[in-house]
């Protein structure tokens, strides 16, 4: 299974002004991908931007008649040069893809309870969890209603337990999603003695805040840093951990929140 392959864009759809869903039909079989793993995409054929861009796999479909190698879909925010090029690529364009890469979220064992937390575009990395484990609670924080990347209808279709908070209160609870989470875990702990696991992805500030909360739950988060190789060879995507420098692309992007040294990460 070659992790370097070409894939054709079969869908490139705006979600809102800044976000879009890119769905690819790979030209070769793709290795099984855990939620939390990522792929790197080449934005066009130019040497500027030069490097591949990393994106978490949001969803996939299995091989079928139309797409013999299944499809891969990504939810992307137009953040800069590369993502803005991707946003404009027409259906039918072929892209260079590298992946799957990195370590996904650890599988949930019997008797464990999973809670999924997403902030903003972080929903892309964790949405797969909600699909795989079904009806796990999803805590999703956004700035304002317009920033909700999936409609409440779509969210409700994938989980019975959706908790939304927005900074301005325009959707869900007004305030920080972590407050809702904290209350929820506190309650759950009263009734459930087993291992509670929180899997989260979101802006740096949110993850950092989570690290400072004393949630009685094992917490895994997905980190982002600039990347070059995606393979652990350039040593560029360093993050400080309790065990020394680690590579987000190879040792992560999913880390146990406890292991991250936040002062400089």
């Amino acid at each position, binding site marked *: 299974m*070659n*992790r*370097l392959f070409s894939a054709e864009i079969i869908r490139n759809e705006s979600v809102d002004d800044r976000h879009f869903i890119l769905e690819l039909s790979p030209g070769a079989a793709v290795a099984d991908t855990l939620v939390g793993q990522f792929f790197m995409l*080449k934005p066009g054929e130019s*040497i*500027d*931007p*030069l*490097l*591949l861009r990393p994106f978490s796999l949001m969803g996939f479909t299995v091989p079928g008649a139309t797409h013999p190698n299944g499809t891969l879909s990504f939810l992307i925010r137009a953040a800069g040069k590369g993502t803005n090029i991707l946003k404009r690529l027409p259906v039918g364009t072929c892209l*260079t893809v*590298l992946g799957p890469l990195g370590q996904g979220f650890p599988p949930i064992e019997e008797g464990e309870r999973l809670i999924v937390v997403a902030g903003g575009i972080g929903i892309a990395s964790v949405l797969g969890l909600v699909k795989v484990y079904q009806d796990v609670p999803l805590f999703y924080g956004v700035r304002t209603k317009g920033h909700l990347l999936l409609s409440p209808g779509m969210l409700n279709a994938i989980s019975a337990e959706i908790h939304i908070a927005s900074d301005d209160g325009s959707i869900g609870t007004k305030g920080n999603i972590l407050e809702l989470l904290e209350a929820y875990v506190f309650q759950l702990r009263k009734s459930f003695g087993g291992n509670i696991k929180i899997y989260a992805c979101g802006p740096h500030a949110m993850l950092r805040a989570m690290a400072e909360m004393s949630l009685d739950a094992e917490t895994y988060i997905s980190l982002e*840093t*600039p*990347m*070059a*190789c*995606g*393979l*652990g*060879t*350039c*040593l*560029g*995507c*360093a*993050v*400080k951990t309790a065990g*020394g*420098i680690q590579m987000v692309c190879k040792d992560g992007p999913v880390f146990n929140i406890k292991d991250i040294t936040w002062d*400089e*990460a």
Partner: protein
Amino acid sequence: MNLSVDIGGLRLKNPVVTASGTFGYGVEYAEFLDLNQIGAITVKGLSPRPSKGNPPGRIWETPCGMLNSIGLQNIGIETFIREKLPELRKYDTKIIANFYGDTIEEYVEAAEALSAADGVHALEMNISCPNKQAGWIAFGVDPVLTEKVVAATRMATRLPLIVKLSPNVTSIADMAKAAVDGGADALSVINTITGMAIDIETRRPRLSNIVGGLSGPAIRPIAVRMVFQAARAVKVPIIGMGGIMTGADAVEFILAGASAVAVGTANFVNPAAPADVLGGIKQYMDRHSMDDINTMIAGVIC
């Protein structure tokens, strides 16, 4: 078609090698290309003892290039010999061990340790990394010190000794001469060019080390010029590098005076780049009915 070239006593089956620090310890890329097909693998820069490198904020993309300040993080020579070299010995390609030290003594120590190892075919001495501070950097920019550290290292090994030059100098020709006077069998030209980028929103440098090394296509014209100048200044073979993405780019370096070429940053964009670059060189030779790559070296007409 003869693609074989001689790099100061190191015979390569073809002129395409990997640039240190951009191809890990080599084995990571076995998945993407047939390692037996490239001229040599140059491994990540090694030091006598493991080094943890710089804090995060290590890379940043720039127009047609990237800055890095990895800070020479590496597993150390001992671990390399124990864990990586046995894997590398399985491939029918040459292994170039890139290394550095913080002092002349460490250079010597590193060269001795690597020379004693089974499966290292040549040494590439990095005197030019812009990510190390203070006195160290002087080895790469002061010709007197260059000659001194090269001469000391020369005594410590019988392997072909390749000295990798810094582009951050007024005269690459003088540096090339100093390295050759010190005993270099070949030169690698160029390492990265010192650069800097600032996040205008936070006002902080993008790299924790403030400055880092610029690589990629952006620097290619500078690298070609330096290879040209170095090749005219000394008689030893040169491994040319700096922004090589395609076979055509490689041919440009060979015409400028390189006997071999190293593929660096391109590996990040395309992990099969060394194979693709080699393919491109062959196509060019076919198209021009050349049957020996050696006839092309320094073939620029001026």
